[in-house]
């Protein structure tokens, strides 16, 4: 409940933040909304010597449209994503997902950049960002690079963001009109984190067959992933008969997490059931 001492630095720009991170090296940590880091600091499981607060960098806190894409700054809160008209209109699943992260207070404070960079295996956003083919912009002293969501999550709480780098924004192509989507989660009863969360998005061709399927799953394994076997099994087929068989592949090749709330078996089963249900909802919402 009482964090250990640290030195606090307020960065007013990404450039300044990067310079600070370079200066403090391994001892420096970025503080955005703080909803991943501060809890660990309170328990003294994290004891960074230097905190670089990027919370005041205004340009990271906006949602804009540019080059046909919706770009969400790393400091945009879950609440702002949930309520954004642009996101609702063009990335409905993301706002649906943002609305069920944590609780009201967490959504008012937690940020998309913080959530993705922390990559908690049970976080909600990663499933949606994977299903929406998000592109994550990372800046370092050597310049910036863009990493596709598929390549972003590397292992347990390990992402493509390197020490000394800052996740600055996430860009998405708008969801095709007529696409059906949903984010469905089974809440861990105590923490509210996803025991399993499934983001499903599909579009139908003129014949009513699936011509694009994206399924992102969180909570099941050490890292969020795209259920490519499910996608492949559904592609080109009419949803109604194919979904059940496709969803059976939801946990293929994954070593599921296991804890006091759900064994690996049960998590895998939940993933299959929720994938089927999410795809059924998505299919029902999709327009041919």
């Amino acid at each position, binding site marked *: 409940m009482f964090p250990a001492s640290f030195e606090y630095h307020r960065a007013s720009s990404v450039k300044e933040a990067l310079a600070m991170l370079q200066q403090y090296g391994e001892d420096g940590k970025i503080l955005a909304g703080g909803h991943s880091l501060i809890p660990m600091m309170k328990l*003294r499981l994290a004891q960074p010597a230097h905190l670089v607060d990027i919370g005041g960098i205004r340009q990271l806190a906006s949602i804009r449209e540019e080059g046909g894409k919706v770009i969400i700054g790393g400091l945009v809160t879950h609440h702002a994503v949930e309520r954004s008209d642009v996101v609702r209109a063009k990335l409905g699943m993301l706002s649906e997902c943002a609305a069920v992260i944590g609780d009201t207070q967490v959504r008012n404070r937690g940020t998309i950049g913080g959530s993705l960079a922390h990559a908690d295996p049970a976080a909600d956003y990663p499933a949606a960002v994977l299903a929406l083919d998000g592109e994550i912009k990372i800046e370092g002293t050597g310049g910036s690079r863009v990493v596709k969501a598929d390549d972003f999550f590397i292992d347990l709480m390990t992402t493509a963001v390197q020490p000394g780098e800052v996740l600055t924004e996430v860009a998405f192509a708008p969801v095709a009109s007529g696409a059906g989507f949903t984010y469905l989660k*089974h809440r861990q009863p105590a923490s*509210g984190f996803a025991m399993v969360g499934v983001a499903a998005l599909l579009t139908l061709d003129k014949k009513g067959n699936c011509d694009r399927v994206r399924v992102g799953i969180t909570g099941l394994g050490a890292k969020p992933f795209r259920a490519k076997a499910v996608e492949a099994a559904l592609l080109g087929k009419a949803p109604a008969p194919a979904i059940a068989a496709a969803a059976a592949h939801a946990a293929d090749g994954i070593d599921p997490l296991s804890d006091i*709330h759900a064994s690996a078996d*049960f998590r895998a089963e*939940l993933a299959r059931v929720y994938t089927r249900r999410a795809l059924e909802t998505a299919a029902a919402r999709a327009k041919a």
Partner: protein
Amino acid sequence: MAVIPKFVGERIKRREDPRLITGTGMYVDDVRLPGMLSAVVLRSPHAHAKINSIDLSKARALKGVVCVLSGDDLRDKVGPVPCVAPADHVPYHPVLAQGKVRFVGEGVAVAVASSPYIAQDALDLIDVDYDPLDAVVDPEKALEPGAPVLHEEFGNNSVTFASVPNPAVDEAMRKADKIIKARLVNQRLAPIPMEPRGAVARWDGGYKQLTVWSSTQIPHLLRSQLAEMLKVGENRIRVIAPEVGGGFGCKLNVYAEEALVAHLSMTLGKPVKWIERRRENFAGTTHGRDQITYLEVAALKDGTVTAVKAHFVCDMGAYLQLLTPAIPGFSGLMMTGCYKIPALSFDQQMVFTNKMSTDAYRGAGRPEACYIAERVMDMVAAEFGLDPADVRRKNFIPKEAFPAPTAGGLVYDSGDYELSLNKALEIVGYQKVRAEQEAARKQGRYIGIGIASYVEICGIGPSALLPPKLKGGGWESATIRMEPDCKVTVLTGVSPHGQGQETTFAQIVADELGIDIDDVNVVHGDTAVVQYGIGTFGSRGTTVGGPALMMSVGKLQEKMKKIASTMMEVPPDQLIFTNRTVALASDPSKSIPLQQVVDAAYGYKQPIPGVEPGLDATSFYEPQNCTFPFGTHVAVVEVDPETGVVKFLRYVAVDDCGRILSPLLVEGQVHGGIAQGIAQALYEEVVYDESGQLLTATLMDYAVPKAHMLPRYELSATVTPSPVNVLGVKGVGEAGTIGSTPCVVSAVMDALKPFGIRHIDMPLKPEKVWRAIRDAQQKG
């Protein structure tokens, strides 16, 4: 002049609320004293280990640190944490571990500093060299030969073995149509009041006066125990229970930290505060339940239960807290529930394990008993293909039988169990819901209807029921004081922490004295102000504290009538109190203002023969029996067979807590109780791993239910006054918890009936339900 209304029985807004809704109530962490220091306790990460050495030097050297102590520094300075309940083996329980730790979270050292941040920094600098030992967490394994022994001096892990034999049970078993056997588990729960524990101590050396603010349910009992632990006279200790943020039994105790801060303040000469953090609360505040019951039930084909025999294994944890070994007794005694089961026998094996101690938790022994009784009724119904409601009716103690002696040796005061069952079934529309259930099953939906009829034991109680070593019995005290300005002060020995007696008692006094509720101030929780009292637990606040207050009110009325009688020249027994006057009962227009009577008592200008000056009265009320509230809860749930998730469709509760003084407050008590009972049925469980690590150490892993996890409760009541006390009240603090747990389990099992599933141990988490269905399908 406006007529003052009656208050008892009305939906009164609580008098404690204005301060609580504006953030101005004072909880223990809100106590601020000049020069106050913060204490933080270092706790064992091991479930069982020998302490080789503790190096405090670096911690002591840190700037801002005032004092760092370990258990060895306190030998012979602070007495052991007390257990007053009888047991064969009562281990020495030091306030900080000495030589060995026996559970994760046991206090090992304490650091005192100018702020809790610095005290925590100091803890990080303490180096403890442990030699880990094998731990035992399963109480049944703890009894096996070769199990690690917690307290070597006893040679094994048995705390005590108690047996209540009855030859009639064997006879009934021989004659039974069927003997149903079962193993039932009441899992370990954590009480989790939203305010963790905490204590502040201030030693005034000049006055030789120790003041301890503690988040406790029992300020006077705590004072008595602190006096013994610290070797300070009780007349030198003042315990204040300020605003207490929930207790649920876990603050009906005396903890190491309360004595520790007192000792620190006495040695340092400054006020010292310790506030429990939630992880400490999970690891180091008493847990509840944790009983395994092996049952044998003798039943006849028509559903009659003729005998129950039980063997209990009760997990006490590593040490014995204040009442630890006394709790399971209630489970045995109340095991026959609302039923006229003629023969009962049981034995209880209580066991040490490398876990936190168990002790009272909302219901304390009775939820376990009710769970057993209600599972028995459902199992009998399932066994003979009978309707579970009919099986209950068949076995109920009939209303003519009260006062009803039970197989457990108690005498139930009053009741009408069938009335409450019928009312609950009527509200839920039992036949209609059964039809819906049938229709739903045809569509592959699994709806279940659960019934639980409970009776519990409240208003504890006659002093003989409480352990002999407890200083203080089962009585309660009250003082009433009519102040010179005609305002009334009530000092009650109970120590409410959410129950609302500041309101209920004001209602009673206002009505009895014919004054406004705003003229009454109810004071509690300060041993320097209030006469010795017992405290709030066992649904006794109004049930025992109320009659005590009525006794004092009566004494005060008698005195005031005597005074008024001389002033009005009418016999005292013809006077009543109404509308701030003392009036003639036969003609209330003939009256004198109450203030005149009060003036006469205080001014005493004209001495009244046989009447002393002043206006106050103190009483100590010893109840002749406990009270036995009862009721029936009915839940309708739907189980998702693919995920095992249980969803509520309806929740109906018909409770009978005797006469209802404050309907709104009674509803609140029932709601909260139901929520905690549902939590046991579906969500909560304290989990230790095999090595004794606590895996539910935060609210991230221990599922205290949130608003969306609970149903809307449909409440109703029957009123069967208790003949035990003058108010006719029975108590309601625990009733909801006791009825709801078996009710929900019953509903889920009813939903799973098509799968042939008869029982799953609590909590009925989705995975367990899913697994049971899967296993049943694979078998079938």
